């Protein structure tokens, strides 16, 4: 294994070296960094040209200049722009901004894609399956810049208009949305025609009454979950995770999950009106999330009995979701203050930029501001990458479900839940894990267009501005990060595959 990793690392290093060499010369070919100076009629034109030539070593031909660039790079210096600014500082700022943009989108797209892909595979050839297949083909074919403009027009401007004067959902909207929810649930949940009809009625009723309640309490102006919402989410996830991971017959798991959800509910008021005021940094929130998972694992361990593993997992997931719901509620509490503040003026969904300038407030207000700015670009990115994950996870699970060991598992009398979750799902994840690893390597470079449309100054802007101003060093810095990540994650994908699948031997 070690020999394989070292061999691959060396090969990757040379591949990256060759790719940067190629790229450096192509960038040099694409334009002359002195063009704007040559065209200018400043009195000290020759002096400016000389100083920039000196700054960027333009008197050396491109293939040799590459080695000067490489030499500086080895010492950790990405060079300077044509204006003499350090690329290192630009890169640092751009990378942070882009990571903020793409991380949530990627995580959500993977989770959604997996869920939809798995459900379509389990309901193969149903109406739901055909609809999702068509929709994912449609998403495959969508140009992201077109989607982005549509989102700006309809989601941002439309939703802001909706929020501006007394937001109430219309009756027609409630009816259509409820019907769609009914159709969705009745096609996902299996059973006879009669059972499907019952599912349909329940889903329609639940959705319609929820939307009506939201209308009555003026939810869109003053959103919030309150302790009732948190209780529903917490207890629901306790039951849901138990049913999914161990089955409801495992009483230990159910009680452990309910205990954790109850703990969360008991902490609701102390947190919302006490502890949360002392949380001023993001790492504190992250630490709390970790602590919640720890508590969940602990409760699972104490109550787990003989088979602790699954019980601990159930309790930890439940704890995480309950704590997440409480944090979400805390964010929602500041929504009204945020939306009606002088900087926002009742039009909260932003179409451009990554934060509201001059906005000052607690961590919670900051969080809401990030949310309103991330919403549109994240939706655009999710729409595009969600289709791929859906198709892959569907194909992967179908492939596994046709294997002989699945038939064996069924033949020995296991419940369908156990067959799917324990035997099929885990094996279906192996190829998906490699695709995810590969994709994460590509996301930093993949958001160039999204960043442009939504006015983010991230890696895409670094690349584009560099290219437009025929400024080679920022372009190369962008490429080095993107190419390096792609190679690194390609290697990780191979290793993950070898580690997960015992049939693969790396030597």
């Amino acid at each position, binding site marked *: 294994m070690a020999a394989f990793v070292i061999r691959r690392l060396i090969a990757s290093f040379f591949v990256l070296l060759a790719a940067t060499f190629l790229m450096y010369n*192509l960038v040099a070919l694409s334009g002359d960094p002195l063009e704007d100076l040559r065209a200018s009629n400043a009195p000290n034109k020759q002096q400016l040209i000389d100083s920039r030539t000196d700054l960027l070593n333009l008197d050396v031909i491109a293939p040799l200049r590459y080695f000067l660039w490489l030499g500086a790079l080895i010492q950790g210096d990405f060079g300077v722009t044509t204006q003499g600014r350090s690329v290192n500082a630009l890169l640092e700022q751009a990378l942070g901004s882009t990571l903020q943009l793409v991380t949530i989108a990627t995580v959500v797209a993977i989770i959604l894609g997996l869920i939809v892909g798995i459900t379509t595979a389990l309901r193969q050839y149903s109406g739901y399956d055909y609809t999702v297949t068509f929709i994912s083909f449609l998403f495959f074919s969508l140009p992201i*810049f077109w989607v982005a403009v549509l989102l700006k027009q309809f989601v941002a401007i439309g939703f802001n208009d909706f929020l501006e004067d007394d937001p109430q959902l219309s009756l027609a909207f409630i009816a259509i949305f409820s019907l769609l929810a009914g159709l969705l649930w009745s096609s996902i949940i299996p059973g006879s025609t009669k059972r499907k009809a019952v599912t349909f009625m329940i889903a329609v009723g639940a959705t319609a009454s929820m939307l009506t309640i939201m209308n009555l309490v003026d939810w869109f102006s003053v959103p919030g979950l309150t302790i009732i919402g948190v209780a529903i989410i917490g207890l629901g996830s306790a039951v849901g995770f138990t049913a999914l991971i161990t089955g409801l017959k495992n009483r230990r798991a159910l009680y452990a999950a309910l205990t954790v959800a109850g703990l969360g509910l008991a902490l609701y008021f102390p947190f919302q009106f006490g502890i949360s005021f002392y949380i001023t940094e993001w790492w504190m929130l992250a630490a709390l999330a970790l602590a919640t998972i720890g508590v969940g694992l602990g409760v699972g361990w104490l109550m787990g009995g003989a088979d602790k593993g699954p019980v601990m997992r159930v309790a930890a997931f439940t704890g995480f979701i309950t704590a997440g719901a409480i944090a979400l509620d805390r964010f929602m509490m500041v929504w009204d203050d945020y939306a009606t503040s002088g900087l926002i003026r009742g039009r909260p969904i932003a179409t451009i930029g990554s934060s509201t300038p001059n906005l000052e407030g607690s961590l919670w207000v900051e969080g809401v501001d990030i949310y309103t700015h991330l919403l549109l670009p994240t939706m655009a990115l999710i729409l595009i990458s969600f289709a791929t994950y859906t198709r892959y996870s569907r194909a992967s699970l179908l492939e596994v479900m046709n294997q002989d060991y699945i038939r064996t598992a069924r033949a020995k009398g296991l419940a369908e839940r156990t067959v799917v979750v324990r035997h099929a799902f885990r094996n279906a994840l192996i190829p998906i894990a490699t695709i995810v690893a590969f994709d994460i390597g590509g996301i930093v470079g993949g958001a160039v267009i999204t960043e442009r449309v939504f006015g983010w100054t991230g890696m895409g802007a670094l690349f584009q501005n560099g290219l437009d101003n025929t400024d080679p060093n920022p372009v190369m810095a962008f490429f080095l990060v993107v190419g390096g990540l792609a190679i690194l994650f390609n290697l990780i994908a191979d290793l993950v595959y070898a580690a997960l699948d015992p049939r693969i031997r790396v030597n």
Partner: protein
Amino acid sequence: MSNLSTPPPVPPPTGGVTDAENNLENKEVEGLSQSQIVRRRFFRHKGAVASMVSLAFIVVLAFSAVGFDFAVFGVQIKTPGWWQWTWTEIPTAQSGGRPTLSLVPQWMGGDGVRFGDHPFGQDEIGRDIFAVVMRGTQQSIVIMVVVGLIATTIGTVIGAVAGYYRGWVDAILMRFTDVIITIPLIVIGAVLGLAFGNLGAFVLAIIIGLFTWTGLARLVRADVLSLREREFVDAARVAGATDRRIIFKHILPNAIGVIIVNTTLLMAAAILLETALSFLGYGVQSPDTSLGKIISENQSAFATRPWLFWWPGVFIIAIALCINFIGDGLRDAFDPRQKRIPNARALAKAAAARDNSAAVQA
């Protein structure tokens, strides 16, 4: 294995229904050549057939309406079109440039079915958007075809040579592929588009094609690696066939499924790449136009002239969607494991027939 997996409750004495059921697929393709089977399966995929018809319609419409005008290495090819405007003409603006296309008949309360002078509307200075969109569609189709041809040729040859010769040839070619794969397409496209974009769609397509073959090369190599170990390759070698003949006549025809399916996916990706590049300003340059460029130029006018935005987008999606569906149909057609799944009613009928025949025999 197969009789372990489906043990018949009552073994049918002579052939029986169960056997016929298992061989449903085999019976259907009895006496047909491989290409006939593929064709048959493809035409069974309704989405793919509908997409093929729509794509053909779009191609004919785009190339006949405004005529084509492409410069290939200095040779100008130009034909007239039947539409009254061209994409460079600037007629006077009528009724605020609103589209004159109407598909709602008068008896349904609409304006009646008519095409009008400017079916897709006009932009601020009066250009006819139908002509512009048709020109953009042409560009997309040309780029799609040229990229498909170039990338498929390069990818197939590199993949086949690497897989067939193995050893150091394989190592060098695959490391070269790794180098190219490392560079994101949008990056290479932007850098090269900036340098060559003003030379027209054709040159841009060649450039894109030179960098999009990598995925195909890897797939073909993997396929060839396994195919070269088969007996028919040994047979050809014993018969004295040259390496070139073995690769092109014996191995590659067996890898045609992988090649065709991935070519279609690559073509759909090429369309989206070109529109994205043109949107960023690195693709097709003025005075020529492309679908991505139209959207880029008019995105701020969405509130006042939404048709400038809808029509090019609809054509991009229509072409890409058609290609993707055709690819899906081809994948199904070439997949040897693919089986036709009978629906629940057919299965129930078969089960009833089996019970009946068992009862008769008892």
